[in-house]
Each structure stands twice: as structure tokens, then as C-alpha cells.
């Protein structure tokens, strides 16, 4: 599911709405951390209790209270909509209109957690989230928030080659003729491969480029020149593809 936001400059952009699976895993990580924090409080409290009866118990009570009600709230507020679990899973809470969530919203969505966690293990929250298209639980509905993926899923695009010398241009017309046989999807795949080549691991990169070269050799009778690497060859094709519109 895609959530579209229109900026004040009237440019639409999109967030990918986080699925229930990632949200559950993030919650699991957070619960583990909450348990660890609680245990630490119990330890410190019981040491203090030895020194002065009652005081340690009081500190434990307050600590459990703070961890129980404020863990999600404080992290989401201070970390721009992320808790450690959410950060690990690459998801983030935002306002429905696409901006950063406010303090009040963080408070509301986390108080409403109580209602969502009924009758046990987030039964209500799960049902509600499964029944709306943007997977919002009751707390999200009441606070006007949304959980989205904001991992940096696409690294920077690489530079594309532009058309080169005279001899390359002569070859380009032949290439262009042959490339007419490709489907639109195939053309896009070639362009994407070249744009994102820097994000691939070395081995994957070599494998993908040689696979693409093999395809052209077998189906379109286009082969790299002597001393030309597979990658350079595909980049030539991409250069032709990307400039054949003008």
C-alpha cells in the first residue's frame, strides 16, 4: 500500500506503508528491551531496598511505571517517530499528512496502546489494522498517524553514459534498430541496472551484467566488441536507450 503526500510545492511523493509483519517484529524487539530495562530497575531497586526499606520498592514502582508508559512515547518523540525496534526494522511513525509526528500525537497513540492490546497480545489492534488499507491500529486512528518504511531503500543513482564518439554513433543506429525488439519492461530493466550498479555487490554486479550481455548475444545478435567489458557494453546500450527520445 502506498500513501501519497502532496508537498506545499504541490509535488506528490509517496511513502510505503509498513506491513503488520515489520511492525510486529519491531514491537518484539521493543518488548525485549522493555523487559531488560525492567529487570535492570528491579536489580537497582532491590539493592536500594537493602539499604532502606520501602524506598527501593518505591523506585521500582516508579521505574516500571516510566518504562511501561513512557518507553514508546519518549523514543517516538525524541527519535522522530522511531523506537529502537522500529529503527532496526527501518520503519517510522509519521503524521498522516506526511510530516513529523508531534508530541501530542506520540502521547495519544501510546496511551491508546492499552485499548489496542486488548484482549491480549494486541488482538484489537491487529483486527483494526488488518481491516484498513493503511494498517493503522486504534492508536494511529486517534492520533492521526501512520507507520511507513523510511529505510534508505534506494541508494544514489549512478551517472549514465552519454553518446560518445563518431564510431560509437555509427554503431548506435544499428543498436537502436535491434533494441526496438525489446519490450518496455526489458528496456526499463536495462536502465535500472545501469543506474543502480553502484549499489550492487561486486559479484552480483558482474553476474547481472554478464547475464544481460548473454541475452543480447543470443537473442538480438548484439555482442560486445573485443576488449569491451560486459558492463561497458550494457552501458552503451543504456546510453542509446536513454537518449533515443529527443
Amino acid at each position, binding site marked *: 500500500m502506498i500513501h501519497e503526500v502532496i*508537498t506545499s*510545492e504541490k*509535488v*506528490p*511523493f*509517496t511513502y510505503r506503508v509498513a506491513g503488520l509483519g515489520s511492525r510486529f517484529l519491531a514491537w518484539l524487539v521493543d518488548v525485549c528491551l522493555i523487559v531488560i530495562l525492567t529487570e535492570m530497575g528491579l536489580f537497582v531497586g532491590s539493592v536500594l531496598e537493602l539499604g*532502606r*526499606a*520501602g*524506598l*527501593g*520498592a*518505591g*523506585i521500582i*514502582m*516508579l521505574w*516500571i*511505571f516510566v518504562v511501561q*508508559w513512557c518507553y514508546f512515547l519518549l523514543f517516538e518523540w525524541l527519535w*522522530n517517530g522511531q523506537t529502537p525496534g522500529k529503527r532496526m526494522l527501518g520503519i517510522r511513525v509519521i503524521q498522516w499528512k*506526511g*510530516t*513529523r509526528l*508531534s*508530541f*501530542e*500525537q506520540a*502521547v*495519544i497513540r501510546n*496511551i*491508546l*496502546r*492499552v*485499548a489496542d492490546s486488548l484482549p491480549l497480545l494486541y488482538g484489537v489492534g491487529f483486527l483494526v489494522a488488518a481491516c484498513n488499507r493503511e494498517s493503522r491500529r*486504534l492508536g494511529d*486512528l*486517534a*492520533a*492521526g498517524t501512520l507507520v511507513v518504511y*523510511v529505510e*534508505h*531503500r*534506494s*541508494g*544514489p*543513482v549512478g*551517472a*549514465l553514459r*552519454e553518446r560518445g564518439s563518431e564510431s560509437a554513433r555509427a554503431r548506435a543506429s544499428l543498436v537502436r534498430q535491434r533494441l526496438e525488439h525489446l519490450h518496455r519492461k526489458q*528496456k*526499463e530493466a536495462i*536502465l*535500472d541496472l545501469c*543506474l*543502480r550498479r553502484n549499489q550492487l555487490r561486486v559479484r552480483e554486479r558482474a553476474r547481472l551484467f554478464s547475464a544481460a550481455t548473454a541475452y543480447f548475444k543470443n537473442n538480438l545478435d548484439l555482442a560486445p566488441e573485443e576488449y569491451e567489458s560486459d558492463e561497458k557494453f550494457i552501458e552503451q546500450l543504456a*546510453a542509446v536507450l*536513454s*537518449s533515443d*527520445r*529527443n
Partner: protein
Amino acid sequence: MNLATFINERRPQWRQLEDLLTHVEGSGLATLEEADAMQFAQLYRRTASDLNQAQTYVTGDATVRYLNDLVARCYLVIHATNRMDGWPVLWQRIRDYPVVFRRHFRQILVALGLLLVGAVFGFTASYYDSAAARGFLLSTDMPMIQPGQKRSLQSTGELAGFSAALFRQNVSVTLVAFALGITFGLGTVWLVFENGILMGALAAVFAEAGAWQEFLTGILPHGVLEIPAILLGGAGGFILAEGMLRARPWSRLEELARCGQDALWLVGGAIPLLAVAALLEAVVARAPDDYLDSGLKLAVAALFGLIFLAFLLLPGWRTRRPGFVDHP
């Protein structure tokens, strides 16, 4: 459009924006030098328009996705105006509190009515069947006072521990009453009513033992603040429920989100109340009678009750409500 030219021409600026953005995401917009801030804004606008172009003309997913992510990340850090910046905002909220309270007087009355009905029900039920009353009272994890209970003087450590436990318990009840408003108010109704029953049943136990004075001195010093706090939680829940039920020019979801923020600050008032109430309960209400005279306990109750009422009812009548314009 020529994709290669487009990308090769614009790419350096995207990379530059990315660098600035990484810096901003780490340490905030405020840490940018003035020149960098200007450039950041400029690069963002330019990139947003590149995204617009790419969406229309460019084939292939990679470029559009890259620009989309870049713009989305920028958007999150640029439109972060709604941060709560500490004391001034908090101070403003405290000053506005009486007005907010009075604006939601209707919901508070509903909660009060429910609590009273519950109390009467609890009282009559347990007056005629005391076994049931004790069963009901004992089943909760709240530390209840008992008639004829011998109270010992507690150390400061024990007092602190005890009031912390009370605070935690009561805040949880209040917040849950608020949260359950999302069940169209049904959960809130039940929770407020149940607390009324508890109070009524406890009163019946004391009435049976003929210990009215003990009941009042044991309940009132903190009750004058604790009972309003649960009413605030209940009222917050009812505001949420109303937001879900009311059909408005705008959608239910938007109304719900608006009501949530509205109710939040009302309910927030319960937290300082409960902190004070927990201290009063541990220190005053449960102090042994030969240590603190029962008259003194009631005086403390009256004092705190009056201060609270005065805060709610006296200030803020002359502040102009938002949306109202005085005509000369």
C-alpha cells in the same frame, strides 16, 4: 527528455542535498550555518521539482524512487514545526487549563453522574450483602483501608514506596479510562462505574462498622484530588467517543484525531493531581490517628479541595476564546 543528460546534469546537486540531509537528520536543522540552510532549502525545492519531472517523463523506476526517498526525507525534517518546545508551551497549557476544563464540563458531569450511580449501587448492594462487598473489594489489587485498622507510623522510605505504588495504580486507571473511550465509550463507562462501585462498597463496609468518621478521614485527604482525576480520565474517554460518533462536515477519522488532541491536555491535568494525591494518601490519610488529628486531616482535605476548585473556576474567564472576535 534525455534521461542521461537529466541525470548527469542534476546528480551532483542531489548528492549535495543528500550530504546536507544526512547532517540535518543527525543533528537537526538548527545546527546548519546560514549559508548551508539557504542552500538546503534551495536544493530541496529544486529536487522536488526534479521529482515532479521524473514522475512525468522518465522511464524506469530507479530514478523516481531515489528522488522520492530524498524528497520524503527532506519533508520530514523541514516540516517539523510542531515540536513541543519546553517550558513556555507547558506554562501556556497550565494557564489555559481552567478554560479547557470548563469547555468540557458536560463530559465531566457525565463521568461524575456515572461514578455516583456506581457508588449508590455499590453501597446498597453491599449494605444488604456484605459478603459480596468484601469479595468484590478483595478481588482488586488496590490496597484498601479497613475499619478499625491499627495504623503504625511508617518510615520515610516506606511512605515513598507506598505513594509511588498508589501513583502508578491511579495513573494507570485514569489513562486506561481515557484510552477505552475508543470503544465508543463503553469501556470508559464500565471503568468509571466500577470505580464508583468500589467506593460505594467500601463506604458500606465502614457504615456497617459505624465508622463514618474513620472513612471520611481515610478517604477525603487524597480523594478530593483523586476522584477528580478519574473523572478527567473518564471525560477524556467520552470526548474520544463523541468524536467517533459525531457526523461532521469532515470525516470521522479527522474528527477523532482532533478530539484526541483536545482530550489529551484535559486528561494530562490528572497526572500532577495524582502525584499530589498519592503523597497525601500515604502521608496524611493513612497516618495513625494519635499522630495526626482527624480534624486536621479533614482540614487538609478542605484546603486542597478549595485550592483545586479555585484554580478551575476562578482564572481565565477574561481570556478570549480562540475563534471569538470582540466587536467594538
